[in-house]
């Protein structure tokens, strides 16, 4: 029976997808900016983790918070200096600006790291959990590193959700999203909040990159693939909605896994895009809808 394994595959993949997309969705939903740099931020995080492990021997799960903090700083600065100038402009202007910035970043990454693919190889591989050892008839094998990464990913997503819901700054972010002027009138420093949001997006992207470096071969050439997935998941789940990202990511993971098993892997991308298109036409606010500002 293949279904249980494919289900497991899809869920694990979906958790990772959710993590890839959450930073992107947050920035888009709150600041109305489509951040084309998102994929490259993930790659930066991955490289940082890779080199930290290779040269300093530090485990990626340890470097994760450090990298996240660094990326937060970079994101905050970038927003405060450059991107701020186009807040409120049309989607075209903001998208073109981040597109241009991404060209610069991608080129820099290519020059710095070359296009070679690298993957972090843990000296002590985490191995697999063979469910057949516990339950005879369940033909499922779960790779531990993916499992851990997916769990961390879900924790990050939940952390963002809790942050938005229960901290002061988080509430300010939501307020700014709902009504920027009203928030300003209430004493919220809107520019600062926008920058914080962008910083958080970058931080999570960096953290995701760290997790992915253990699982995927990474190269600057991957940034557009990550960005593409983020788009799809955001639309599936609904912009700016954190639970939506989880739903979107899991849905995409499951659709791709089962789609590949049913019609063949070469069609899996076509299926996801076609599904997306259908959704956009029928329900553009995504599976969760924009009511979910949390």
């Amino acid at each position, binding site marked *: 029976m293949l279904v249980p394994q494919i289900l497991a595959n899809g869920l694990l993949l979906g958790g990772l997808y959710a993590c890839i997309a959450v930073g992107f969705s947050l920035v888009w939903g709150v600041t109305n900016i489509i951040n084309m740099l998102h994929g490259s931020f993930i790659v930066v995080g991955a490289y940082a983790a890779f080199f930290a492990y290779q040269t300093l021997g530090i485990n990626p799960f340890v470097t994760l918070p450090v990298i996240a903090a660094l990326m937060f700083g970079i994101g905050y600065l970038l927003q405060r200096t450059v991107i701020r100038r186009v807040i409120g402009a049309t989607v075209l202007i903001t998208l073109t600006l981040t597109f241009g910035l991404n060209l610069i970043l991608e080129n820099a990454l290519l020059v710095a790291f070359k296009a070679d693919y690298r993957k972090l190889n843990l000296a002590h591989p985490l191995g697999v959990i063979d469910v057949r050892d516990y339950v005879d008839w369940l033909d499922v094998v779960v790779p531990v590193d993916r499992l851990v990464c997916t769990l961390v990913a879900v924790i990050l997503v939940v952390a963002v959700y809790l942050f938005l819901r229960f901290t002061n700054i988080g509430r300010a972010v939501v307020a700014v999203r709902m009504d920027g002027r009203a928030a300003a009138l209430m004493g919220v420093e809107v520019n600062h909040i926008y920058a914080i949001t962008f910083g958080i997006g970058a931080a999570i992207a960096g953290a995701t990159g760290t997790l992915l470096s253990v699982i995927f071969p990474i190269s600057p050439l991957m940034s557009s693939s990550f960005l593409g997935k983020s788009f799809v998941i955001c639309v599936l789940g609904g912009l700016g909605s954190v639970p939506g990202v989880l739903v979107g990511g899991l849905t995409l993971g499951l659709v791709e896994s089962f789609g590949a098993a049913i019609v063949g892997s070469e069609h899996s991308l076509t299926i996801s895009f076609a599904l997306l298109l259908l959704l*956009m036409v029928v329900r553009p606010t995504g599976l969760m809808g924009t009511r979910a500002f949390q």
Partner: protein
Amino acid sequence: MKYSTLLLVIACFLALLLVPFGVGNYSVRLATTVFLYAALALSWNLIGGFAGYPSFATSAFFGLGAYVAGIAQHHGVPMAGAWMIGTMACGIFSIGFGAAILRLKGHYFAVASLIVAEVLREIINTSTSLTGGGMGLNIPVFTSNPDLFGRIFYSAMLALMFASLLMTIWVSQSKTGFALRCIQQNEDAANVLGVNTTGYKILAFALSGCIAGTAGAIYGSWVSYIDPSDAFDILISVKPIIMTLLGGPGTILGPIVGAVVFLMFEELVWRNFMTIHKGLLGLIVVGLILFLPTGVLQIRRSNSRAWSQMRAWIAK
């Protein structure tokens, strides 16, 4: 349209037709590329500049036109006929597709238009028996004389650019243009006033799609080999947008000016900075957005504003 305008346009067309006889093949190719992008920029301007709908579907129609025409030629249809079939296919598709996604606004429309290209690309990638899939499609070449070949396509692209220009002029001065501008300013109000917003939007989208499709068809025959990642490259959607923004969206000559300036820059940068040319291009785009948001053509008007903005930023 004024008679004098029409005559001027035709005169320019004829003058440019004669240029290839005086320059080398590479320059002819370069010019053909400029005309190609100018036509794409003009096509985008109709839906993006006039109506204000940020479409990223240019590459979808471009690729579709290239493949439909390419497959037709593969089966023996003569080149010009194949181009017409490609254009018609794009027309039909853009009407159908436009009806579906033009209901969406702003970001959602942009994303939906982006996704069309992805879907089409994947469909073509997997329909290997028809399109060659990832292995690409070879399109028969009708002459092996390099000079003649270069000039024919130069003329074809030039003609396309001028046709797009004439269409832009016509739209701009007609009721359609007026309606599109209303839609851009305030679509709900336009609706209330009885403007058939859906109809005009679809018209603009369809015109845009047809031009992009014809450009793709000509392109396919010109390069004689297409594959899905080339034909549906996202840059084919993005570059015309940047060019139009550079030249001035919603204007008539803006897209052409933008295309010329952008491609000049790109060629200069590519020739001289092999490893960092993409990054420098990015720098140009960023500079453009930050300092010239209304485009080159309006630089005199917003000049003082742009300059004072720049001074203020530098002073920080």
